[in-house]
């Protein structure tokens, strides 16, 4: 269960940095980021757990089906916020 723990830590660190550096994110950027992070967490949890369950096939597909949307959401949040902040 190292992946989900790592993701939890990364999530907390990222949010803390955003707050400390007073990065002004729009509400929809927060929403996209939270959804993306949640999906990434679920993907990591299901992947790690499925490996422990001796189900590598299920692990791969769960990572794929949950991880890709997670990356899309996180990417969108990053793209929108960085474009807006640079403008």
């Amino acid at each position, binding site marked *: 269960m190292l992946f989900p723990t790592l993701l939890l830590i990364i999530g907390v660190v990222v949010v803390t940095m955003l707050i400390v550096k007073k990065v002004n994110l729009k509400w929809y950027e927060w929403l996209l980021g939270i959804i993306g992070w949640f999906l990434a967490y679920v993907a990591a949890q*299901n992947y790690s*757990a499925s*490996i422990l369950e001796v189900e590598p*096939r*299920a692990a791969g597909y769960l990572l794929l089906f949950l991880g*890709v949307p997670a990356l899309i959401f996180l990417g969108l949040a990053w793209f929108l916020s960085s474009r807006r902040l640079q403008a």
Partner: protein
Amino acid sequence: MPENLTRREFFKEMGVLGTAAATGPFLLGADEKLPSNKRPGWIKEIDKPTVEIDWEVMKRHDASITGFNPKFYGDKLDKLKEIDKTNEQSRLEKGTPGWDLKAHAVAAGWGHGFANLSLAESQFIGPEGRFNPEDRGVSKWKGTPEEAAELVTAAMRYYGASSVGFVKLEPGTTEKLLYANDGDRKIIEYSSAHSEPTETETHRYLPQDCRTAIVFTVQMSRELWRRAPTELGGSVSSMGYEIGGLVQARTQMFLKTLGYQAPGEYRRNALGTAPGMAVMAGLGEMARYNRLITPEYGPVVRVFKLLTNLDIAPTKPIDAGLMNFCRTCKKCAEMCPSKALSMDEEPSWETTGEWNNPGIKAWYDDGVKCRSYWYEVGTGCGICFAYCPFSEKNLAGLHKLQGWAAGNLPVLNSTLRTLDDFLYTPNWETLGQPMKDPEDWYKLDMPEYGIDTTRGKIHGDLG
């Protein structure tokens, strides 16, 4: 995609995502096959042990010469034994926590103080010994029915039971869950003439006050059962029965030490109907394969029962949406090699033969078709148990979601069945049986008995 992937195959299948995914094994400390028998990297193999040895000095030792050998104590031994006995008796009489009668009873269940008792076989009356608390100078254990339920459950979990429930056997209703006669044709009967469980050539008599049925499950190895039907997969049932027999004997010793009676199964699947008692005790629900399905372990359990005159608070039947899930799932019936299971959407009052006991609206199975397949294949089967969507291990969040959805959002049932097929049993119609390669099992690093004993529990074994 093959059923068990090497890391290389995994990379190939997963493409870019596989790069991220394949780092998992490194972080988890595993190797080429997951999970492997290899220990984490900080445990190094070395040529000499960390303790120094002088083989010149060492001799082969006499096993009778240990700290227990009386010769080292001389005249002091009798005095030490007397101190031991006096202290034990004093703590027992005072009810010192950890030394009181209930603690003695828990320890007695493991044979503590009764080292020569054999627990190998299930017995109606149970192991004989000096159990009576009055012989020890204390009165029998007393508590509320709720305290009794807590105490018995804790002890039985310690003896190896996975889940424990209690049913009051009432004349006219739940008493009918007792068999009229056991498999050896001995008649099971409540008798006012017998104050203790008594076995004769023709009867097993139960005292009238033995009205609490203790019902318990023993978890089996789902991973091994997915190798059914093979000799290897068939051993799962035998293991479950063996542990169940031991749990019963331990519980009998425990209850007798508390001062109560504990007639049990004279052999596996005796005394009463297992799924019936388990359903009434709330350990699970009836399933399409006409056996018990539990929320914690799915179908991968064996069910046992014994009776007692200790007043224990009964546990209530449950609805976790499991029987409802069976209505649309039908996976067990579809996978059944002998087609012994019902494909009807709704359960029925109609039995399929004398082997069924009427009176419940169930999906009655054709026991003869099922057993015929056992003869054909040369071992027990269990495919219906092993491939039930609820037999999946419950580490992944997906399985927790499935359990929640079955109870709260049944509209998702058929989707969850489809997902289970896709993730865990792809193309099972064309692959034949067994689904998982029996040879792969030897490479796994499974927990003791091949089961996760923390499953369904709040407090894991932390020491």
